[in-house]
Each structure stands twice: as structure tokens, then as C-alpha cells.
């Protein structure tokens, strides 16, 4: 493979993997810490993209739109947890699947009512809308590089939050012994609400950040949801570190798979999952 093409593919896999990580890290936290299977997680990715579309048009600045979008999705996450999700903690997974599947339908319908069924696009921010030439014919878009940088910063911030702060300790502790966390004076209901909102905001943020390069279209959350579950399973349920490694692996497998073995391009992520599970049935990392 030509080195320039190789570099481009590598940057693409990094960018795809990191974006996937943002979605999957929330999913793995909500599943691993709170025990909730959130099928609607992909919908928040979609909602994020549509928010970026509308807000950018409304306020005229992509970054301001991102900021407002994050605030809105945090609010949405808090409200949903309060209204619905908190009723699921003591229930069987079947109820969780039913309720969160219902949410997918509701969000798709709402999306159709508000935004219609057309495909939309979001403009790449002006000052990042240029490419770095790599060879005479090949170049790489700067926005994609900046996007990966933002994702890496967020990954580092998440690592810091979960591994180094008292809030992170409480989040990890909440995964193993709910009663004891309460008995130490921690409001576990509030803690779970924050974790849920954080996960939702991360998924929505990924949708916003990716919108300039992926376009904005109906059902865009569903495919992301499935791959995110694959990431969670490969990484080990509840492990944010595992989600990062797994998302990057899938980014590489998917991107290079398309180039090297196009016949099975759609399956590489699942083949990777099967291989990892044969080798380590619990995923790469046990819970954080």
C-alpha cells in the first residue's frame, strides 16, 4: 500500500474509532454501572446530528451550536432518567429492552415530525475547511484531524474523571455495591442520573461532531448502536478503557477491511468480536 494512502486510512480509522468510542463509552457506563441496556443510545447520536444541523443554522456558528447542543442533551438525559429510566433499575432486562426500544420509535417519529425525512448536511466550520496536501493528488481534510483531537481530549478527560476523581470512584463503586454506596452518604439516585446524562451527552456530542462529514439522515443512530454494542462487548462490559481500545480496533478493522478485503467489508467488526470472544469471553478488559 502506498504510504500516503496508508496514512489516510490510518487517520480515517482513528477518526471513526474515536467517534465510536464517544458513543460506546456512554453505553458501557450505563450498562456496566447502572445495569441498564439502553437500546435508545444510538438515537441520541442521531439527535445530536440533527441538533447540530438546526442549531448551526439558527446561531450561525458550529462551535456555539455544539455547546448549546451539549447543554440540551444533558438536559434531555437528566429528564429522561428522572421520567423513565429510574423506574427500570430494579426490573428485568426485558423491561429495559422494551422501554428503550419504544424510545427509538418515539425519537424516530419525533425526528420525522420536526425535521422531515430528507437528508441534511452540516457545513464544515469555515476556518477548518481546507485540506493538507500529502502527495500531488492526495490530501487530508483538517476538520477530520481536529475532530480526532477533540475526541482524544474527551477520552483523556473521561479517564481523569473516572480514575482520578472522587466522583469517578463513586461511579465505579456504584457498579459493585449500591447499598454500601448509599450507606456511605452518597445519593445514588443522583449519581446514576448524572452518569446517564453524561452517557447521553457523549453520544449526542459524537453525532454533532461527526455531522459535517457524515451528513444527517433518518435512522442514522441504528447502525451506530449496533457497532457500539460490539465495542462494549469486545472491550468488556463497564470498562471505558476497554471501549477505547475496542473502538480503535474496530475503526482499524473496518477501514482497512474495506480496502483490503472488500468482499467481507461489512462483517469485519463482527469477525473481530467473534475472535476476541473466543480468546477472552469477558472481553478485553474486565470492568473498570
Amino acid at each position, binding site marked *: 500500500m502506498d504510504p500516503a494512502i496508508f496514512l489516510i486510512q490510518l487517520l480515517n480509522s482513528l477518526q471513526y474509532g474515536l467517534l465510536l468510542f464517544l458513543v460506546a463509552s456512554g453505553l458501557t457506563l450505563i450498562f456496566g454501572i447502572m445495569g441498564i441496556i439502553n437500546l435508545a443510545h444510538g438515537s441520541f447520536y442521531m439527535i445530536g446530528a440533527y441538533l447540530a444541523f438546526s442549531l448551526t443554522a439558527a446561531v450561525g456558528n458550529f462551535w456555539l451550536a455544539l455547546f448549546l447542543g451539549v447543554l440540551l442533551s444533558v438536559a434531555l438525559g437528566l429528564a429522561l432518567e428522572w421520567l423513565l429510566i429510574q423506574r427500570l433499575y430494579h426490573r428485568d432486562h426485558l423491561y429495559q429492552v422494551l422501554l428503550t426500544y419504544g424510545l427509538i420509535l418515539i425519537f424516530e417519529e419525533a425526528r420525522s415530525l420536526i425535521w422531515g425525512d430528507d437528508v441534511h448536511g452540516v457545513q464544515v466550520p469555515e476556518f477548518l475547511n481546507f485540506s493538507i496536501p500529502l502527495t500531488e493528488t492526495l490530501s487530508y481534510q483538517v476538520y477530520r484531524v481536529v475532530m480526532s483531537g477533540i475526541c482524544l481530549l474527551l477520552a483523556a478527560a473521561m479517564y481523569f474523571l473516572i480514575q482520578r476523581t472522587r466522583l469517578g470512584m*463513586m461511579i465505579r463503586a456504584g457498579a459493585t455495591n449500591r447499598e454500601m454506596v448509599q450507606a456511605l*452518604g452518597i445519593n445514588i439516585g443522583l449519581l446514576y442520573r448524572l452518569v446517564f446524562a453524561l452517557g447521553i451527552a457523549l453520544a449526542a456530542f459524537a453525532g454533532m461532531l461527526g455531522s459535517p462529514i457524515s451528513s444527517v439522515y433518518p435512522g442514522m443512530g441504528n447502525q451506530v448502536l449496533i457497532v457500539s454494542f460490539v465495542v462494549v462487548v469486545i472491550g468488556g462490559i463497564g470498562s471505558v478503557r476497554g471501549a477505547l481500545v475496542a473502538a480503535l480496533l474496530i475503526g482499524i478493522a473496518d477501514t482497512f477491511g474495506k480496502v483490503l478485503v472488500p468482499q467481507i467489508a461489512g462483517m469485519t467488526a463482527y469477525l473481530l468480536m467473534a475472535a476476541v470472544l473466543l480468546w477472552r469471553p469477558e472481553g478485553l478488559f474486565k470492568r473498570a
Partner: protein
Amino acid sequence: MAELLIEARGLHSYYGASHILHGVEISIGRGESLGLMGRNGMGKTTLLKTLLGLVRPRSGEVKVKGVPVTQAPTHRIVRMGIAYVPEGRGIFPNLSVHENLVMTARAGAEGRRDWDYERVLKTFPRLAERLSHGGAQLSGGEQQMLTIGRALLTNPDLLILDEATEGLAPKIAKEIWQIVRVVRASGIATVIVDKNFAAVNAITDRNLILVKGEVVYCGASSDLRSKPEVHQKHLGV
């Protein structure tokens, strides 16, 4: 009597249909040490959980420092100055020793900070040597020291110990009792549940005996010592 930290009346608690507590009355004064006794399955743990709001009584009332808390959430009740060392210890196995300790370290309900990180490590030198270990890598005795240390770091007015020496070698159990003495001497009230009734009796001011969810005896520790027949009847095996 000094200010009452806990005052509960007419507690009836259930697990599903099984009626566990039958109108229990209990009070704990500031700085007091209370031994809660009873054979296996008599409702000691259930009573402690009911006081903390982890089990909700179907009727009856719990007051902490004079404030009714029967319906209050557990986190709010314990923040009024109660620390709980549960049966089975309840350490977080996926957190390091250091993290287990500092996660909920805070000043007490009245702003006291008698117990800080350094003092806890000085009291439990074994923990100081294992700060980066995972909670699950500790021996039973070390885990117990960790839960007690963690509890003390919340600077409570009342420390509740449920079976703190269970499953420990006699030598380690002795260390735990020594620590309980230090805690007592520092003015923290204690509620102690333990299979070793003689040790509980020796260390506490007052004893309360539960039989099938009812208080059958409540009196000074010295008083119980002079009544071997009460001891024999309700606690003997």
C-alpha cells in the same frame, strides 16, 4: 441522659410477607456504647438496616438527633453523623485501598475532622502498606480495618459495627477490639453486634437482647453480667 443520637419506637419491619421486627424500641445516647445481642437470625442486622433506612419499617418511627427520618433516604440519614460497617464488610473490590478510604472522607455533621487520612493510616499501619492494592486483594482482617477506617473518615458521631470480628483469627479479632476501644475513647458512640457476647459485654455500656424481633432485655452491661440466667436463656446455645 445525654442527647439521643438515635431514638426509635414501635419498629415493625418485614421482608416480603415475613414479619421480622415486632415493635422494637431502641435508643443510643451521644458517646454511648450499646451492645446489640441475639442468636442467629433474631433480627439484629434487620434492625440496623431499618435504622439506616435500608429497610423501611411498615410502622414505627426513627429519629436521629431528634429529627424524624423514618422516610428519609439513607444517604441523608447517615450524613447526620452515622457510619455503618456492615456484615460482610462491603468494601469495593474494584477500588484501591486508598480510593476506598478517600472516596467518602468528609467532615462530620458538626464540622469535626478528628479523623483524617493520616490518623487512619497511623491507626491501621497494615493499610498504609497496601494503599495501591485492590480492595479484594486484602486479607479478611485487613478488609475489616479498611471498612472501619473508611467509616471513621466520615467523622461520625455514631459507628455501627455488624459482626466486625466474624471469620477472623483470634489474634486479628483482638486487634479489632482494641481499635473499637480507641474509637470509643475518642467520644464516638458505638452500636456493636458480635457473636462474642462476652467481648461485647465487656466493651459496652448497655446491652440489648433481641429474640425473634423483640427486645427481651435492655440494661447496663454490668447488670447483665450479674444475671447469668438471662444470658443463658436468650443467648446460650
